[in-house]
C-alpha cells in the first residue's frame, strides 16, 4: 500500500499495460473504458482497499464492484499486480475455458467481488453488499464503479435512492464520466445533464474531480472518510481511452480490434512510459 503519487501513477500505467496486453493476446476487447478507469483502480488497489490477496473472501475486507463489467481487463490487471494470481493468467482473456471473461465474474476470478456486465445490475448488488456488511457489523467499505453510459439504465437510480435512504456511508460510488458510450457521445445519445447535481439531489456527499489524476482521485476518496451519515459519490471527469493518445483520439473506442502492429505500438508506448517513471516497483 502506498500514498506515494509517483508509485500510484506508475501502477496506473502498469494497469493500462496489463489491460492492453490481455486484449492484445485475444486481438480485441473493451479498450476505451478499461483505460479511462485505470487511475481509479490504481488508487483503490494501491492506496485504499483493505484486502488480502491470499484470502480473497475475507469477510471483513473492503469490496470493489466494477458495475461497468466490460472494464474487466483493467480490473484483472489490477488484481494481478496486487498479487491475486500470476500476471500471465490475464493473457487468457476470453479464451475458451478462461477464468478471465470480458465481463467480471466473481465465480471465476479470485478478487472479483461481484459478477457484473449487464449494465446497471452491479449497483443494486453493491448496495446490497454494503448494507449486508453494515448489518453484519463489519467495518468494510464498498467502492462501486459505474459507467456514464451505464447510467442510461433506470436500475442504478433505484439503487442510489435506496442507498441514500439507508444512509449507507460505507458506500462510495465512482462514476467514470468518460463522455462516451458504445454508439457515441453520452450527451448526444441520452443527455444525462449533470451527474454531480443528480447525485447531490439523491442525497449523496458528492465531489467531482479529474478522474485521470491519481492525486485528485486519492484526495477525493480520502475526503469521504470525514463525511458520515450519507453515501458518497465521486464524479470522475475522465477521457475514454486515457493514457494512449491514439485511442483517446479515436471516436469509436469502446470495443476495438486493432491491427497487431497497432496494439503492439500501444503496448510499447506504455512500456516506455513505465520505464521512464519513478516510483520503483509497486509493492502490493
Amino acid at each position: 500500500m502506498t500514498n506515494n503519487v509517483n508509485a500510484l501513477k506508475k501502477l496506473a500505467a502498469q494497469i493500462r499495460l496489463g489491460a492492453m496486453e490481455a486484449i492484445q493476446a485475444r486481438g480485441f476487447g473493451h479498450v476505451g473504458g478499461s483505460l479511462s478507469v485505470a487511475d481509479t483502480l490504481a488508487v483503490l488497489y494501491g492506496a485504499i482497499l483493505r484486502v488480502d490477496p491470499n484470502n480473497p473472501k475475507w469477510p471483513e475486507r473492503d469490496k470493489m464492484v466494477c458495475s461497468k463489467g466490460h472494464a474487466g481487463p483493467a480490473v484483472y490487471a489490477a488484481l494481478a499486480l496486487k498479487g491475486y494470481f500470476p500476471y500471465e493468467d490475464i493473457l487468457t482473456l476470453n479464451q475458451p475455458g478462461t477464468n478471465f471473461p470480458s465481463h467480471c465474474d466473481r465465480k471465476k476470478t479470485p478478487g472479483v467481488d461481484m459478477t457484473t456486465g449487464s449494465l446497471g445490475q452491479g449497483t443494486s448488488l453493491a448496495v446490497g453488499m454494503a448494507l449486508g456488511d453494515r448489518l453484519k457489523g463489519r467495518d468494510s467499505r464498498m467502492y462501486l464503479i459505474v459507467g456514464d453510459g451505464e447510467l442510461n439504465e433506470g436500475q442504478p437510480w433505484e439503487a442510489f435512492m435506496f442507498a441514500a435512504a439507508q444512509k449507507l456511508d460505507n458506500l462510495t460510488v465512482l462514476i467514470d464520466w468518460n463522455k462516451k458510450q458504445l454508439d457515441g457521445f453520452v450527451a448526444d445519445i441520452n443527455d444525462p445533464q449533470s451527474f454531480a447535481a443528480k447525485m447531490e439531489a439523491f442525497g449523496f456527499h458528492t465531489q467531482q474531480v479529474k478522474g485521470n489524476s491519481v492525486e485528485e482521485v486519492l484526495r477525493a476518496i480520502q475526503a469521504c472518510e470525514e463525511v458520515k451519515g450519507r453515501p458518497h459519490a465521486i464524479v470522475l471527469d475522465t477521457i475514454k481511452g486515457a493514457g494512449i493518445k491514439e485511442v483517446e483520439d479515436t471516436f469509436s473506442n469502446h470495443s476495438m480490434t486493432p491491427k497487431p502492429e497497432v496494439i503492439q505500438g500501444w503496448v510499447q508506448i506504455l512500456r516506455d512510459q513505465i520505464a521512464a517513471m519513478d516510483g520503483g516497483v509497486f509493492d502490493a
Partner: protein
Amino acid sequence: MPKIVYDGSLDPRTFKDVIGQTIIRLLESDPDVIYVDADLMSTIGTYKYHQEHPDRAINMGVSEANMMGVAGGLAASGFKPIAHTFGPFASRRSFDQVFLSAGYAGNDITVIGTDPGVCAAFNGGTHMPFEDVALYRAIPTATILDITDTVMFKTLLPQLIERPGVKYIRVGRKQNAKVYDEGSAFEVGKSIRLREGSDLTIIACGIMVHEALQAARILSEQGIHAEVLDMFTIKPLDVEGLLHSAKKTGAVLVAENHNKIGGLYAAVCEALAFHHPTPAACVAVEDEYGEVGPQDYLQQRFGLTKEHIVQVAQDLIKRK
C-alpha cells in the same frame, strides 16, 4: 409423510396470515435470514414487524429490479434473503435481475410471488401472471413451488431458504381448500399421491389441487377412476412419481393455474415424451392474457374448474 385431511372444506387460515407469520418466525429464529419487500408488506401482514425491526424486514419501495439485486448482494454478504412481491413483479418485471444478479452470480435467494394466475382477481390482467413458472423454469437449477395449503407453505419455506440457487414460491393470499394436516412433512421434488386410481392420472398444483380432487370424485361416480398427484414442486419435477403413475394409468391430465405453455403441463410432457410417451392433456390457460374479475368468474373464464377437468378427462381416456 403428509397426512391428508381433505374433505372439500376451506382452510381455516388465510395464506396472507400464514405467509407473514412464517417469514417472521424465520427472522426471529435465524439471524442470517433477512426479508425484503417492494412496498407490499401490508398485503402479507409483515408491515408492523418491519416498523419494529427495519433492519430485518427491509422495505425497498416500489423497485423490484433493485430489490432482487440488493437481495443478491445480501446473499453475498452471508444472509439468506427472502424477497416478496406480487407474482408478475417477482417474475417478468425483475426477471433479468433474478437470472443474473441472483442465479448467474451465484447468490442464493428465495422469492415469494403472491397472487399467481387468476388469484390476482380484482387487480386484473396487469397483475395476473400466467407465465411466471415458464420464466423461472428457464433459470438453470431453479426450484419452483406452487403451494397447495397453509400447512405446506409453513413447512416448506424453512426448507427452501436452505437450498442453493434461485427458489420461487407462487402462492395466493386467500383461502384454499385444506388438504394437509398439521405436522405433515413435505420433501421438495417429491409429489404426493392424494387419491389412487387406474384410468388416468390427474397432476395438479396450487389452487387446482382442490379442483382435481372434486373432479376425481365426479369421475368416480361415472366409473372413471382417476389418480390424483399433488405436484407442488414444478422444478425439479418428480419424474419418478410421474412415471410410476403414468405407467399404471396410461393417461395424464395436468391442471394448472398458468399458461399451458412453459408451466407444469410442459414439464410433464417433456418428461413423458422422453421416458414414456403417454396420451396427455391439460386444463390450463389457453395462451391468453389475464383480465379482471372475482376468482370464481376467472376460473370459469379461463377454464380452470372441476367441470373442465371432468370434460378433458373424459376425452383423454378415449385416446388411450
